[in-house]
């Protein structure tokens, strides 16, 4: 690129703060300036504007990056930082930025724009821990490319790994690389990806299916949305490589309806990839064909469970069924089916580019939210201490407060007490603490939080999202929530607490699928680390503020 470039984050979060309007204004402005300069014969005003995916610290949005033609870029927050962004405030800010840019363009050429700082903005220095401590592989191109322009993605290297894979035409070799990398499913369960691929590849029969689980339902989790909105081609490339490896020629992406922008971006990306021959029949001149269909959900968290997801793709109630048979044996339409989540597939191109040894131990994308100073999406090396993420990168609790716990894994997960913040974030360490890595949602809870309220919140969620097929989940979640509400209204006795502790294992051991099996985990986890919060509610009069218990 010869000129300067303004990258404006137009992913859902910044978009809700007016970023798309900003992009349109700036775009129009530069277009007219460029055409004017062309007619006037003034050279060098080659400044481009593009809408890009997530730039990271969403709480600072709208975010805008300015790339100088000579290299180097600066990131600006136009954010009102926590202020209610009314339409009028947003509109005024956009006007001011556009007017100032207009002046900058009028005053000089691309290099002037490269020096430009938007008014009322705050530059986020490159050594800001939120940015500097990231290792962006899955999100390498997210925030850099225009996700609606395949040319941009191709220029950044999209589909090169697919091309190489097709040239080598060694499916077993690819599976072996994935196995050696140690990549595990990023959707929550952490099943070894290579093993899963090998199982599907070994299934007899000519017809197989690859499914991408983009039904990111955990509240407080938006890693997959970030990939879908910011760099859908990396996902499509990963899926195509997987399809080639396991011998599938048909793929589905099941995406939740709550992500309209992700759906739009996926539709565009699939169509463009087909036009450019990276999806469809005889891809890149090989005899490999792979047709991808988008399936949009209709509001059902349980469809993130793989057998429920299969039923939903088949146009049925999203009700889980017992396994075995596993989807690898009998999945969509009864065919052997590989199901991975968005982030897992999106890891594949980077994994192949780096090679399994250099890739390991991989990265994990997290969405950091809740009672934390800086929230957003970040990708860090697997095993980064939780403290680094929530305190160093996220800035810790808001002023005057202390972190009490970090909730991971959503309704299937648990709470890590502040005393255990030095825990490295990996599958085993979190499990040892009674929670799970989950898909990557990380909600910071400060010392104003009552953990019984958090447990009740998640139980209400599981109750609402229970499919209703098996009784322990359908009715057990109702009874568990009733017990928690009884506690919260200070009407519970020690007998009720005992009942709670008795019923939790029944629901987790007897439920049919992962939703019910893990629904009690937020209760068990908070009972383990914050029993004091429960005991304080048993007393008829308000006790001293609950203290965090040492595990």
């Amino acid at each position, binding site marked *: 690129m010869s000129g300067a470039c303004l990258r404006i984050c137009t992913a859902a979060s910044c978009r*809700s703060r007016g970023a798309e309007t900003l992009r349109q204004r700036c775009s129009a402005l530069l277009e007219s300036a460029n055409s004017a300069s062309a007619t006037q014969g003034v050279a060098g005003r080659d400044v481009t504007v593009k809408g890009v995916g997530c730039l990271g610290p969403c709480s600072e949005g709208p975010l805008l990056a300015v790339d100088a033609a000579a290299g180097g870029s600066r990131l600006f927050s136009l954010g009102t930082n926590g202020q209610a962004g009314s339409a009028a405030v947003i509109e005024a800010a956009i006007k001011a930025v556009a007017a100032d840019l207009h002046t900058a363009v009028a005053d000089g050429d691309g290099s002037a724009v490269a020096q430009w700082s938007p008014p009322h903005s705050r530059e986020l220095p490159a050594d800001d821990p939120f940015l500097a401590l990231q290792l962006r592989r899955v999100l390498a191109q997210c925030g850099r490319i225009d996700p609606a322009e395949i040319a941009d993605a191709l220029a950044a290297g999209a589909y090169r790994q697919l091309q190489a894979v097709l040239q080598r035409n060694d499916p077993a070799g690819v599976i072996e690389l994935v196995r050696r990398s140690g990549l595990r499913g990023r959707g929550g369960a952490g099943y070894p990806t290579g093993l899963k691929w090998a199982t599907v590849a070994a299934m007899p029969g000519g017809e197989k299916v690859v499914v991408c689980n983009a039904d990111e339902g955990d509240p407080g989790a938006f890693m997959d949305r970030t990939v879908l909105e910011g760099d859908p081609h990396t996902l499509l490339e990963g899926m195509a490589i997987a399809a080639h490896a396991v011998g599938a020629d048909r793929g589905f992406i099941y995406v939740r309806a709550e992500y309209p922008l992700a759906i739009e971006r996926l539709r565009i990306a699939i169509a463009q990839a087909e036009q450019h021959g990276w999806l469809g029949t005889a891809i890149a001149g090989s005899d490999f064909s792979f047709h991808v269909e988008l399936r949009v959900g209709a509001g059902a968290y349980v469809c993130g469970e793989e057998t429920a997801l299969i039923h939903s793709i088949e146009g049925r109630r999203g009700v889980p069924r017992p396994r075995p048979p596993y989807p690898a044996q009998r999945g969509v339409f009864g065919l052997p089916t590989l199901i991975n989540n968005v982030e897992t597939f999106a890891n594949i191109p980077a994994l192949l580019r780096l090679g399994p040894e250099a890739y390991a131990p991989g990265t994990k994308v997290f969405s950091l*939210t809740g009672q934390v100073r800086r929230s957003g999406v970040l990708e860090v090396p697997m095993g980064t201490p939780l403290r680094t993420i929530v305190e160093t990168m996220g800035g810790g609790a808001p002023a005057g407060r202390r972190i009490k716990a970090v909730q991971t894994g959503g309704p299937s997960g648990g709470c890590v007490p502040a005393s255990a913040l030095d825990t490295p974030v990996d599958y085993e360490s979190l499990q040892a603490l009674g929670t799970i890595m989950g898909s990557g949602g990380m909600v910071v809870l400060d010392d104003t939080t009552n953990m019984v309220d958090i447990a009740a919140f998640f139980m209400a969620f599981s109750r609402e999202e229970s499919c209703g097929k098996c009784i322990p989940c359908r009715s057990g979640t109702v009874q568990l929530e009733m017990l928690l509400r009884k506690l919260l209204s200070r009407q519970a006795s020690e007998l009720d607490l005992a009942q709670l502790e008795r019923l939790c294992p029944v629901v987790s051991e007897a439920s049919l699928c992962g939703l019910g099996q893990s629904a009690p985990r937020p209760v068990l986890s908070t009972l383990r680390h914050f029993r004091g919060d429960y005991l304080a509610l048993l007393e008829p009069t308000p006790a001293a503020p609950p203290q965090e218990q040492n595990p």
Partner: protein
Amino acid sequence: MPEPYPELQPVLQRHGYRPDGLIEVLNRAQELHGHLSPPLLRHIARQLKLPLSRVQGTASFYHLFRFQPPARHCCLVCTGTACHVLGAAALLAALEHEPLQERGIELGSVRCIGTCSGAPLVVVDGQVWNHQSAAGVLDGLRSLDP
């Protein structure tokens, strides 16, 4: 007799009138008609050759399908985790006490739309309003077309 609901033909065709297209067809039907009425559901069942109870059972399983016409405006309070810890429950409770229905506004909730940095937030007619208070939402709702 002319085929009812000709506007559904494209999506039905795209899915080859196969039962596995049911949810896609329902999504499109609701997009076009605002809600899923019994005649519409009967039509879809006939086209896909599915039992009525299977169509109703499937449609009623998913939160986003609705069987009543929508109000003129829709205000969804996000009740995801981040919004919850930042006060969504109180926000929803406050709005529930307002006579929004009389003003053609339907109040509901949604379990996380994944833009948690704006918590607590509401979605009004598809637009996200960040960092809301009950007073702020009510202010904003007042400016909607009656």
